[in-house]
């Protein structure tokens, strides 16, 4: 055993021992984390204690270095205020949820939440459709189409969403003609500064029965598609499962509809003096919000679609061509399924962004979740619990969307075996 090549340590025993401990890797890890945790906790404590103190107007000093006054503070979020009378009205209501100014703050909160959910759902659907169309156009071999799509994407991506929203609201939909001069769409729909009037369908007696038939029709269509797909796989001859399923659905639903005596009433709008009578009126706030959100988000989705199609190795298209697939078969059977898997994570991100961006409704006076929260804070003054509630609500929405998209992603991955 060779002698130690380290020079003799000439430190007193205690100091050498301390140095050894401090040099120990595991000790350092624990120490570092302990210090970090301590700093975070102290910081958090000061933060919370200060907020508490400001809210209660007492003086507070941090122990143990300075005198401690008062008792150990804790967060006392009083949520009693949520039961109080709200006192403000909300014009837009979704899913038929009822609300008046006499209802509680909590009910107002729920109304706002439902409004947000409605806008988000509609926005996601329309934005996806528009985004896919623009994204596919971007890839078109037609020079004009692909460049117009590029123009679209570059324009709407680089302008802030708020600016676009306010533009749609203030410069477009609020500039619509007065109700007396409504734009007339074949007598079925009307557009004015009061909003967009569309016919509304009500279910009359027998509607419930028909709904049951519709469910049966869906089930039958699924079954038909399944059997025909299997037969197609086994015999190799095309049996058009999708067309047949669609036909089955239409047949069953349509026939039952007629047999039950058409249990639906169409309520057509008519131009009144101050508002439209009958039908449903979609307010300019809502249309502006939907237009702004969808056009903005669609520009990002278009880029995602384009990016994911380009990410598929060229060899795939070549192989498909060599095998004799037609253009639309290539797209349907080879390109799109693979693109799906690549698309889902960034697409999920865009859906989350859209949902969160719907909070900008405050700029167009649409009473969504955030706007209701804002009014509540101004009226009831309970900023802390309200902000916490808002954050919790958006967190839940985000998690729900993420969970749904992750399940779809999981099933897609399994099927494409990538």
């Amino acid at each position, binding site marked *: 055993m060779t002698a130690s090549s380290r020079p003799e340590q000439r430190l007193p025993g205690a100091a050498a021992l301390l140095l050894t401990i401090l040099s120990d890797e595991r000790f350092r*890890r624990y120490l*570092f*984390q*302990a210090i*970090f*945790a301590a700093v*975070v906790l102290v910081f958090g404590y*000061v*933060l919370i204690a*200060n*907020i508490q*103190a*400001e*809210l209660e107007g007492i*003086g*507070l*000093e*941090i122990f143990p*270095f*300075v005198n401690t006054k008062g008792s150990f503070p804790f967060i006392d979020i009083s949520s009693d205020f949520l039961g109080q009378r709200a006192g403000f009205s909300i014009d837009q209501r979704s899913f038929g949820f009822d609300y008046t100014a006499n209802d509680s703050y909590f009910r107002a909160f729920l109304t706002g939440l439902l409004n947000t959910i409605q806008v988000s759902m509609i926005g996601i659907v329309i934005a996806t459709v528009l985004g896919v169309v623009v994204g596919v156009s971007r890839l*078109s*071999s*037609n*020079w*004009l*189409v692909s460049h*117009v799509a590029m123009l679209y994407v*570059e*324009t709407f*991506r*680089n*302008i*802030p*969403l*708020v*600016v*676009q929203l*306010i*533009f749609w609201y*203030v*410069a477009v939909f609020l*500039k619509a003609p007065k109700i007396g001069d409504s734009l007339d769409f074949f007598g079925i729909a009307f557009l004015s500064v009061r909003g967009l009037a569309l016919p509304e369908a009500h279910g009359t007696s027998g509607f419930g029965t028909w709904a049951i038939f519709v469910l049966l029709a869906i089930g039958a269509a699924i079954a038909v598609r399944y059997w025909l797909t299997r037969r197609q796989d086994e015999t190799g001859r095309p049996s058009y499962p999708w067309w047949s399923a669609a036909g089955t659905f239409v047949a069953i639903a349509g026939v039952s509809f007629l047999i039950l005596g058409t249990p639906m009433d169409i309520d057509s709008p008519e131009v009144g003096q101050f508002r439209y009578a009958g039908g449903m009126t979609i307010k300019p706030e809502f249309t502006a919000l939907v237009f702004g959100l969808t056009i903005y988000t669609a520009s990002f989705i278009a880029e995602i679609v384009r990016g994911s199609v380009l990410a598929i190795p060229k060899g795939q298209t070549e192989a498909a061509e060599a095998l004799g697939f037609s253009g639309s078969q290539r797209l349907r059977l080879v390109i799109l399924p693979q693109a799906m898997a690549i698309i889902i994570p960034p697409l999920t991100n865009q859906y989350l962004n859209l949902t*969160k*961006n719907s*909070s*900008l409704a*405050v*700029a167009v006076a649409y009473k969504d979740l*955030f706007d209701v929260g*804002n009014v509540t*804070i101004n009226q009831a003054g309970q*900023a*802390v619990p309200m*902000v916490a509630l*808002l*954050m919790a609500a*958006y*967190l839940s929405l*985000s*998690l729900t969307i993420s969970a749904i998209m992750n399940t779809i992603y999981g099933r897609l991955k399994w099927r494409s075996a990538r």
Partner: protein
Amino acid sequence: MEVSQIMTAASRPIAPSLPPHVVAYRWTRANLFSSPGNAVLTFVTVVILGFAAYQGSSFVFATAEWEIVETNRGLFFTGRFPRDEFWRIWIALHGIAALSGLSWRLWGSLNLRLPLIFAAACVPLYILMLEGWPLLWTSTCIATFGAAYFAAWPIRFSRFSETARNVTVGLWILGFAAAMLPTALYPSFLPGQGGLFSHVPDRQWGGLFLTMVLAGVGIGVAFPLGILLAVGRASTFPVIRIFCVAYIELIRAVTLVTILFMSFFILRLAVRHETSVLGIPITGYEVSVVFMAMLGLILFSAAYIAEIVRGGLQAVPRGQVEAGQALGLGGVQVLALIVLPQALRAVIPALVSQFISLFKDTSLVFILALTDLLAIARIAPAQPGFIGDHAEALIFVALIYWVVAFSMSRASQQLERNLGVGER
């Protein structure tokens, strides 16, 4: 192989050059009318484009009243900033021009496209926007830029280039701090709360100036903070990792307006209350709205930047860290010298995209009643004589946002090319 098939390059016939109208015709055939479907698409698109162009140009040139923009130029650019304090802004702009010129010479590529575009952009700026003193000062700014660029001309390829680059980075940080850091540490940060601009109450900051300040500080502080969070998230210390993950996921799940609200209503309370540790007051300041808005933007963006940098960190092979460790480099050295340069280079497009988002998100501070560029577009049409001119103001503002955002995305592509392998 037949003799006739063996042709030398010289004897191979050259394709005859075609007359231009034939070329144009063929190109149109191939790109616009290659199939019946395509022909229909082209036709429909042309019709729609024509309609939109007609409506658009009739609006822009006929019905629109652009006086609102012309009269309110000052408002759009600087909000209610007092005129006699403008010199502060001009100093800052000259400083930025000088440092930009230096930086471009020391790091940039040598092609001519960028200066030509820049010159082209200056023309409408001059014609439409400037007169009087601003004209003079803008010219001196551009002159400073040019001067710095040419002053640094010999340094780029000399042996001082490395030192010069470090000095420039130092100057940027110093300038940043001098302009933005609070001049008085306590007891109060008000009224304007930022170095060079501290004598002007923050409510009077506005317009493009406020937007740029928010974006600049936001990007400048959120970037290093995001890197720290990403490194923490990848750390082997569970306590640190959990903290970073929790922070990132929480922030990413909520909206920016919520965070701005939280920062304004709640954090302000926390900082306002007086607390002392060991007799030293550490809180107890009145903070300005601009400060709170910046804080909200920074806290929000840092989480997204952290996620992007995390992707970059994952792209660096583990062997790089091992090689560094085996050579005796310490943890921080390995991170700073080996891992981060590679990680950041890998995610430049995503990073710049996030910076552009941050710039666009500054428009949200209107909910805190700050008069940024967008807010000006909302209040300008309330002036008598300009009532109802919303579209003009909004289009102008949208154009400014678009120009800045588009320039940033083009610059990022350029940056990517510059930082590619084999070039520094």
